[in-house]
């Protein structure tokens, strides 16, 4: 006799461990689960609200400097190490995870103008107002040993910036000229100059490592190739650029922080028009840094805020400010894409989360899944007015808000005027100049 028995696979209903959640058989028949859109909309709205509730970006403040912070440098190999230089010539090495200062060095007399760390993370370089370039060991000296630089180079003029090559033992400084140095030599290998103006920032390209760019005080950005005899090209803008940063995932993009409150992303192949104009600051932008993923950038401004922009976004997605934070002079994005360090006038280094509402620390798989789902929901419903309203609202200090409105008013007035002029003149005689085209004066070959 044949006996037929209904059987089920225990894998379908037995959980693997007792700590696992109970397996629930599910029926995905859409008729059983009606109102998809309204339900998801409610979830999205809740997710947005929760996102706002949990948006607490400020992590820590590192105090100890006795003057404004002039520059911050990341350690290339260690996430928790950060080096900062102050306006009184002091350099401090910090441990971020412990939030303490590991080492203090009186590096220069006067400002520490620029710093950079060697690609291997064994040493770092500082330049200061005392016309010297100093190379320091990353390791603190033993107890009782004086902290002396490994190497000191006395220059002819003041150096205003320094950056290290990403693969070789060469570095570049800027001041009166842009000089390329070998670590082993006491005089520059070559020096570039184009015109007579001084430079305030020089940066190596992290991808095309022989390329570098500098910002000059004649409102120019100049590109160089260390293998070539002459500089490559120069762009002159309406206002001076304070710093620039290369995108480390996309070799031909860099962004510069301008005095005219904007940031400009350039493609080095087409310098005549910036790719994107990032607007939102209400005062000069002092520093900018790309995120290590190359998808976002963070900018520090004289208006006492830090803003985070999407790589292609014209407006910021996030603004950070605190009551006590003064003019932000320097800002860096940490190498794991999680944090932002900012150094400001009032002698503090602040640590921010790059994603304000992100939960720190390890997440369980379910937490991760929920976070992903919420993120996607917000993204899906981002155009719905209620979601948008909550998601995009940011509190701004009264003064800042007033300035923002004022500037908006001014911009509108200018636009109105332009339109009126165009309206009352011969058609075609006054061309329409886009926002991107406005800010470039010339490209010099």
């Amino acid at each position, binding site marked *: 006799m044949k006996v037929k028995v209904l059987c089920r696979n225990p894998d379908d209903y037995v959980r693997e461990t007792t700590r696992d959640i109970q397996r629930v058989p599910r029926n995905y028949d859409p008729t059983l689960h009606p109102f998809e859109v309204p339900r998801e909309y409610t979830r999205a709205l809740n997710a947005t609200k929760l996102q706002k509730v949990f948006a607490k970006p400020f992590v820590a403040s590192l105090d100890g400097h006795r003057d404004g912070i002039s520059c911050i440098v990341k350690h290339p190999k260690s996430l928790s190490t950060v080096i900062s230089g102050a306006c009184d010539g002091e350099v401090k090495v910090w441990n971020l995870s412990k939030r303490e200062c590991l080492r203090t060095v009186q590096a220069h007399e006067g400002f520490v103008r620029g710093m950079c760390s060697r690609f291997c993370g064994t040493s770092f370089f500082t330049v200061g107002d005392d016309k010297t370039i100093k190379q320091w060991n990353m390791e603190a000296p033993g107890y009782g040993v004086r902290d002396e630089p490994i190497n000191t180079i006395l220059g002819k*003029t003041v150096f205003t910036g320094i950056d290290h090559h990403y693969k070789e033992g060469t570095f570049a400084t800027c001041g009166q000229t842009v000089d390329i140095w070998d670590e082993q*030599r006491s005089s520059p290998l070559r020096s570039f100059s184009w015109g007579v103006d001084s430079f305030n920032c020089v940066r190596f390209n992290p*991808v*095309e490592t022989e*390329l570098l760019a500098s910002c000059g005080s004649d409102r120019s950005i100049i590109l160089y190739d260390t293998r*070539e005899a002459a500089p490559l090209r120069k762009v002159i803008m309406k206002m001076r650029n304070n710093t620039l940063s290369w995108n480390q995932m996309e070799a*031909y993009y860099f962004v510069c922080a301008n005095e005219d409150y904007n940031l400009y992303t350039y493609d080095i192949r087409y310098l005549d028009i910036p790719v994107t104009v990032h607007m939102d600051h209400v005062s000069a932008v002092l520093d900018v840094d790309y995120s290590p*993923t190359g*998808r976002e950038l963070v900018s520090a401004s004289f208006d006492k805020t830090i803003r985070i922009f999407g790589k292609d976004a014209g407006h910021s997605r996030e603004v950070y400010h605190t009551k006590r934070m003064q003019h932000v002079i320097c800002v860096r994005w940490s190498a794991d894409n999680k944090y932002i360090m900012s150094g400001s006038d009032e002698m503090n280094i602040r640590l921010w989360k790059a994603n304000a509402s992100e939960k720190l620390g390890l997440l369980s798989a379910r937490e991760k899944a929920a976070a*992903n789902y919420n993120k996607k929901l917000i993204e899906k419903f981002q155009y719905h007015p209620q979601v948008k309203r909550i998601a995009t609202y940011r509190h701004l200090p009264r003064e800042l808000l007033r300035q923002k409105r004022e500037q908006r008013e001014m911009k509108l007035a200018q636009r109105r005027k332009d339109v009126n002029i165009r309206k009352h003149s011969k058609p075609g005689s006054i061309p329409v100049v886009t926002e991107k085209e406005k800010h470039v004066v010339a490209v010099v070959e």
Partner: protein
Amino acid sequence: MAASSSLQKTTLSEGSALAADEEELPSEDEPAISASEDEEGSDDERKHNKLLEAISSMGGRKRRKQNERSEASLQVSEFFVNAEGTGEKVMLSDLLGTVEKTPGTSNKTKKQLRKLENSKDTLDLPLNKQETEKIQRAIAFEKTAQEVALWKTIVMNNQRAEQMVFPLNQEPLGPKRVEQIVAGWKAETPLEQEIFKLLHNNSQPVIDPILTPVEEASLKAMSLEEAKIRRAELQKARALQSYYEAKAKREKKIKSKKYSRVKKKKKRKEFLKQFEEMVKTNPQAALEELQKIEMSRMKERMSLKHQNKSKWAKAKAIMARYDLSARKAMQEQLQINKDLTQKIVVHSDDEHESKGKELETVPDFVNDPEPVIDSVNPWMKGQLTCEEPEVSCVTPEDAQTAEEENKEEELLGEFERKRRLRQADEEALTPAEEKKHASEVVGEDVVEIADNDENDDKEEEEVEEEEEEEEVDVSEFNTLFKLMRREKTQEAPEVGEELLEGPNRIRNMEDLEVLDEGLEPQPIVAPSLPQTAVVEATSEPTNKKSKEIDLNEVLTKEANVIKVPFLPTVVEEEHDEQISIIKEAFAGDDVISDFIKDKRKQEAAGKPKDVDLTLPGWGEWGGVGLKPSRWKRSRFTVKVAPPPPRQDQKLPDVIISETRDASIGRHQVSYVPFPFANTDQFESCIRTPIGHTWNTHSAVQKMTKPNVVTTMGAIIEPIVKEDFIKEKTTEKTGTKHSSERKQRRSRKRKNKLENE
């Protein structure tokens, strides 16, 4: 700039330095100029030196001071360099003399140099510094831009990628050497050392899971994608092979004689085809084949195989008398014999030609299609019809018109039928009195309705509110008909179009008013017109009425008719027919009544209904056939408050949907956001749920995958050029190779052809 020029002068401006006269070179040691030194001071010094030099040269005998380099220095000034035997002029020929003798130099350069020696012309001035620098910069920029542009595809791909995982190049999983993990491990015991020595000497892996250098190299040589492609190819080949094998096996098993016969035939045909081709391409091989065929033919002729001499054949021959199939089989045998013994004749070219000629001699008309005389469809007749249309009894035009007429007739018939049906319906619905009215003149109707408007006040007292409202509606619509009517009478030729436009126009209330005004003069004129005209109008209707839109269709309610003198209408006879046709055409769509019905339905749907909360059997007997008492029902029926008046209450020709909820509007998107091209796209995106309530686990995971994934505590290094661009170069070389191969192949082919 001025301060830093000392360095530049030494390094960059060699040209200018060379331009200076050699005699004037300062013999004094030029000290390395440090930045701290004043520029002017050094200049003065040099001038002074020059002066001294000049003075000393005046003295006749030159006193040369040996230059010395006191200290190794980076900045080598040209002033340090001094040559022995200055003063003796170095000729170009002295320098070039050795070139002639050196074996390595090519004739070309020698020639060029000789030419240079002979020419007496001065060289062109070099470009000035600014210009040269500009050119240098331009070249350098081009180069860099090209180099950087290599990243374009990678950047684009990364931007488009659904998910990017950072850091980009995570360490590959897999076995690792102990040396890789433990830095300072050494073989210490003598046995270990001996073993490692052996292994190293044979370049074998030192610890078991790892690979030999050769293996590693081979692994590196093939990228993952290449390997995948290769695997796919191999798989395909294997699959094909297995298919082929299976097919062969299947075919081998088939025992059907018919099948084998067909197969043989096919083979023979194929062979013949091949043979013919071979005759063209490779005559020698063809000749051999021919000989083979000849041999087989000879054999066939010698043997008795297909000659119906076998045992089987003899048996068949006996059967053939009674069995048709046997006869057939025998015939087939003979046929095979015939085929096999037939001599194959290879056609020569002459034969082909003659054949062609033969073909040409056939008269053209043979190829012409037969004259098909199809009166209905002239397109089927080919070229002949257009040449000789007289042949066909009906010309194409005639046929067409006839067709059209047929169609028209058909259509008319259809309309007629429809109309009759509707009339029958109406007759069933409308009371006799109404019918009488309906059968009256259109003109009369118009007038009646026009008066309806005027007599609104009177009616209000008599008729119920609802009805009145509706009447107003109806009257509004009737004005439209008046308009139609008027247009018909005034500008008859364009009647068709105007009528079509009618219902659209009336949507506007202002239009209606205007129309009313326009119509008013007519009744004033009406009484003055002679009675005959009215009679005429009344006499005409029987046929006209049938062609009009039935008023009863429009007046879905009984209209209170007030008799007023008719408005005579002047109808132009010649357009009458056309109008009537158009009327017929649109007789079916009574849009207006539909609209009114629709509106009424919506109104009814919008009204809240009373809620009956009666529970049968509660407090009294219940069961089949028993109903709760009236009292109870009225007691437990909750009456709902009447809704606020509809927005379109006063607008007869408008339906304003009451279902729209303004409070939802705050949650709705009022525009199509950027990446979406249209509302449909956007809506479909919103409509697709992504949650686990509606999707399986894997689907949810896929849909909620984040764009950027970063590992906690991992440093994201900049993208490395070697990892990405290198592949490109190898690909390029690969393509190059393949193109070269192609070229080679084509060359070979050419050679072959030439040989032949």
